């Protein structure tokens, strides 16, 4: 009995001893004061090397404000990870990627297979592959250094655009690293990501650090304030940029693929009487189904979309029109909205056919639901495709 108690005590003592080491940093945990918490990564090409720009959240006192570009650091390397390690080497800070939720690819990177560098972020456990992936106009470095009117860090502003609440995201075709890679490695080798454009707005922030009077690395000039538009969608085939969906097509694509709770659909030039009027429809719900069927040996894409809308705003050139309820959807508006929807849908299919990017995942649908026909049809799927779109915009009846 005594021996047994000694044995148990030895084990308990060992457990407590290890727990002490475990919680007291003696197992070599990284000191938080030497850790750079990276919130966003930008990737560009610079003379055949990857230029990685990181935006770092620097802990600071609440009464001190620092300009955004102070926390942006760049380094180059033959691979994305080499460049990231370079950042650690030249600053002495350990780059912690655990909180990085945004990866931006510069425009110059889109000329080649983007997955060559994106693949690292998909594989590494240091960064969560649920981070948003986007491309941008110009250099990613400039985008991350941009000064925004409402957020202290530009990547936070971009993330707000990309990550809205469920049901309110249909303006932007947001993807994460994993989703992009799943598409890239699928049989169709097709994927997409939002394309961000920085738009200059009025007002400028001083280049000097408020409260410190410290000289900026940028030279102390007036930086224009920027906002970001991510409504366009870049299409990729085998990792190569092959086309772009415009804002209307992006919205149509999203409405088909996800549940919408509150979104807007623009319907312009609706003939009402003698005038052409513009409407903004609030989409409160949608029921959409995209199905691939084989009829007489020909692939048929059946799109059934039902959107529940109410008029949010309209131009009304006649008094009697202005008195009508917004809950009721005028017949000409529903007709024009349906025509527009079909037009955008045809635009998407045309771009998919021309670019080879299977944005609608028809290859997957063919493989899963018509497996016997897969080998015969897969190569000419979009060429032979017949489209049947049945769209209904309905308001209160």
């Amino acid at each position: 009995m005594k021996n047994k108690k000694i044995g148990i005590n030895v084990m308990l003592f060992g457990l407590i001893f290890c727990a002490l080491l475990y919680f007291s940093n003696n197992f070599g945990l990284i000191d938080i004061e030497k850790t750079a918490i990276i919130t966003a990564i930008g990737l560009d090409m610079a003379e055949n090397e990857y230029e990685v720009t990181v935006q770092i959240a620097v802990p600071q006192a609440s009464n001190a404000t620092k300009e955004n570009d102070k926390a942006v650091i760049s380094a180059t390397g033959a691979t994305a990870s080499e460049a990231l390690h370079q950042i650690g080497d030249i600053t002495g800070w350990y780059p912690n990627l655990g909180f990085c939720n945004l990866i931006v690819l510069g425009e110059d990177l889109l000329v080649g297979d983007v997955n060559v560098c994106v693949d690292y972020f998909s594989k590494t456990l240091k960064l969560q592959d649920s981070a948003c992936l986007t491309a941008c106009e110009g250099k990613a470095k400039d985008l991350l250094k941009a000064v925004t009117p409402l957020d202290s860090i530009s990547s936070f502003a971009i993330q707000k655009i990309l990550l809205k609440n469920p049901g309110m995201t249909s303006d932007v075709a947001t993807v994460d690293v994993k989703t992009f890679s799943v598409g890239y490695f699928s049989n169709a080798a097709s994927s997409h990501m939002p394309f961000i454009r920085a738009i200059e707005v009025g007002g400028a922030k001083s280049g000097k650090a408020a409260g410190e009077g410290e000289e900026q690395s940028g030279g102390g000039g007036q930086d224009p304030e920027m906002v970001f538009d991510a409504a366009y969608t870049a299409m990729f085939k085998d990792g190569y940029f092959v086309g772009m969906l415009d804002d209307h097509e992006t919205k149509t694509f999203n409405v088909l693929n996800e549940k919408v709770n509150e979104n807007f659909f623009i319907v312009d030039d609706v003939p009402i009487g003698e005038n052409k009027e513009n409407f903004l429809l609030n989409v409160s719900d949608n029921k959409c189904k995209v199905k691939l069927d084989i009829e007489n040996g020909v692939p048929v894409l059946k799109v059934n979309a039902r959107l529940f809308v109410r008029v949010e705003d309209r131009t009304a050139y006649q008094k009697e029109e202005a008195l009508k309820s917004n809950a009721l959807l005028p017949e000409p508006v529903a007709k024009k909205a349906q025509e527009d929807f079909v037009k955008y849908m045809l635009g998407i299919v045309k771009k998919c056919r021309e670019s080879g990017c299977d944005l609608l995942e028809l290859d997957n649908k063919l493989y899963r639901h018509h497996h016997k026909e897969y080998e015969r049809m897969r190569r000419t799927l979009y060429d032979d495709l017949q489209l049947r779109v049945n769209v209904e915009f309905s308001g209160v009846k």
Partner: protein
Amino acid sequence: MEYKANDHFRIRNVCLFLIAFLPATKIFLLPSVMVQAARSDMWISAALNVLLDSLTLVAALVLWKRYEGRDYYDILSMNLGKTGANIVYALYFLCFVLKSYTLISEQKLYVERTLYENTTTFFTFLPFFFFCGYLASKKLFVLGRLADIMFLITVASLVILYALSFANTDFGAVLPVGVNGIGKILSSSLRALNWFGDSVYLFFLIGRIPPEKKAFIKLLPSYFFAGLFPVICMLMFYGTFSSLAMRQEFALTEIAKYSVAINNIGRFDYIAIFGLLFTGGAAMCLPLYFATECLVKIFGFKKKVFVALGVTVLIFAMILLLKEHYAAAIGISIRYLAYFFLLMSNVMPLLSLFLKKGAKDEKQKDRN
């Protein structure tokens, strides 16, 4: 009756034991092992394993009914003699130790690679071995109490993870069903045997659980409820990663993090992950607990604590010595030891159904 009064293990405990510990070890490395062979049909392989183990469970229950009051060692001794029983128990000892190597290694790797930012030392995982040794030295009722507490944690954690993953899972990715062929599905089932075969623990519980009415009705649904979680895990794993599934090493932290809620709020799924690590820690100890029991039976040791210590040191040494070769070691376990696990976890229990000498009915006949 020869039930050990201090075991305090009832059918209810066995039910909770199955729910608490059966799913906890099958969601770390197992999905990535199964997907290598069966791809989109990995869930069918998992379902086959669950069915196979249900036969083991039924065999244990039949034997338990047949020899009410006798433990498995006694049953083997009566039929095969003392030496035969010792050989079978020695084989089970080997089986449990080899099984535990993979289970502990995968959780060790998981903790070191995903919960730590930098490379950890070997000793980061050391506290587990103290816990393991401590648990292995305890009496059976401790497992019952643990199961009472942990079954809720296991179920709640899995439900949270699955609920978070649900919206982002493309269940259509597993279509068409059976496209990879029966050969690959069976191969995947075989590769997974290191992780399955938990029903065999029941053979080491018979004789220690007092008879209860409707035990079958209580145990089988509990077992299938517990077995449902790994099957769902496989479905969700493939539905989440589809074309990438082949290169995903750990499923546990991966499947839930694509939820919009997590993107907006942060990784609160780690609460569920820690819950599963907690129950997984105890589940990993089970093979070593029963390996200790085997040695105690074979050699008739009185001081179980030293046997537990010895078994723990043995597995610690195995993991320490093979730390640079764990991939090869797990590969051997998947490719070659799978047949041994099949023999011990599924074939041997079914063969045990032929053991009849000294059974309750036979005694009755002799008396008549």
